[in-house]
């Protein structure tokens, strides 16, 4: 009985983690597409993980304290020459969340 219970819990944990990983992986793939193509972030930023070499804005691999929230904020509201992708409805909220997730998990890697 104990063994069955252990196996069931293990299976649950495995399935839960698999689902989370898949979701994150899907976000990373979609995020890269948004970064390089849909939003053209690559045209202005260096991000080694994306193979991008743009040089208008900061090199994202060098930005101090970069995290999901800070990327979301800047992508939404813009800064200087960078468009306000959220305020100006260039990207959807979902797209902003995904590309921010991608950048936050790729920068400096």
């Amino acid at each position, binding site marked *: 009985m104990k063994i069955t219970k252990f196996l069931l819990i293990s299976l649950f944990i495995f399935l839960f983690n698999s689902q989370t990983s898949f979701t994150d992986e899907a976000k990373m793939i979609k995020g890269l597409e948004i970064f390089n193509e849909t939003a053209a972030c690559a045209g202005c930023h260096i991000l080694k993980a994306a193979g991008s070499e743009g040089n208008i804005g900061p090199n994202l691999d060098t930005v*101090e304290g970069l995290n999901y929230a800070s990327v979301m904020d800047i992508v939404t509201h813009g800064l*200087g*020459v960078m468009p306000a992708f959220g305020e100006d409805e260039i990207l959807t909220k979902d797209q902003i969340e995904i590309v921010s997730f991608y950048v936050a998990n790729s920068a400096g890697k």
Partner: protein
Amino acid sequence: MMILLGGSQMKKKIKKLNLSRRNFLAGTATLAGIAATASVAPITIANANHSEGKKGLPDFISWKDRDALIVHSDKGIETHRSAIGESLVTPNRNIYIRNNMPTMTDEQIGNRMDWKVSIEGVKNPKTFTIAQLQKLGHETMATILQCSGNGRGFFKHKPRGSQWKTGAAACVLWTGVPMKTVVDACGGINGDAVYMTSAGVDHVPTGLDPKKAMIERSVPKKVFKDAMLAWEMNGVPLPNAHGGPLRMVTPGYFGINNVKHLGKVAFTTQESSVKYMKKSYRISPIGKKGSQYPSCWEMPVKSWITRPTDETGTIKAGKVQIVGVAMGGTKKVRSVKVSVDGGSSWKKAKFIGPNLGKYAWRQFVLETTLSAGTYNIASLASNGSDKQPELRMENRRGYAHNGWKDHSVNITVV
């Protein structure tokens, strides 16, 4: 959290498409327009001097002193508090970097003496090369170069942008020709002008829409009387990273108005309509924005301690020299007081070193004796009309911070 993808899967997604590149480079596409296109190539223009260089600095400033600098990003690099005040003039190798556009390369600049600047809104509009400007006049002056957002890192609402504390500022010796001399050579300013509007050309190689990318800044016309077209910075040809070969210097005005890679100066009846004038660099309440709010123009009176700080090592009990810098903004700094008890009591500090004029900062020192313990050290400057407030002026983007409390330092004496 680290996300790992299969190598082949990721490589497939790292595409380098080039369909939009031509439009981008030709300047026919705005950023918003590019965003709407299906694909875009990573752009390599001007990248040759911006890759990560030795010592963790970008190549275009690899000549700077890494130990004196805090790297917020490759385009936002701050001077350590303790690396700013040991001499009156800040050495070029220690001076901060804040660039809205990529620094122009030697190839893009070409022969520096042939660099052109046009003067408009005057009786006889003319275009001068640097060689011609050098025949018109020659002057050296000291001013403070300070980013509008210097001190942003103290704001509790964490405004977007580099989190500067004290190090987006420098005292610089500029050499060039007075703007007044140039204006006289052009027959004087047109009668209806209200602003002096300076435009850089560093956006040109990017191909971006000038309305969104051009650094064009208008300041009140009166600024021309003390302004300079500078080609030298602290005794060397103006480095590209600081706007070489020619930069507008607007004494007493925030850094953004000291336009780099200068291509045009016009005396205008209206403020420039580009984004960097109309929308950016506006001091607005938190949660609000717009061109109805004041632009980052005149710098306020300000000071800060540079030594001792938590950066300068163990402080031993006994006699201590408290050192700092003080500036008056557009007026001469008159006095500075120092507190070692968080502002409960103040003592007048002594100005030291030569006085390089009202637009330069003064170094100050207060000799005092400290026993073992913890101290909050603050400085408070006055220009006769205004003195530093205790608290920051809250604003959306974290501009123009001159409150003394945030700029104070906590030290431990042993």
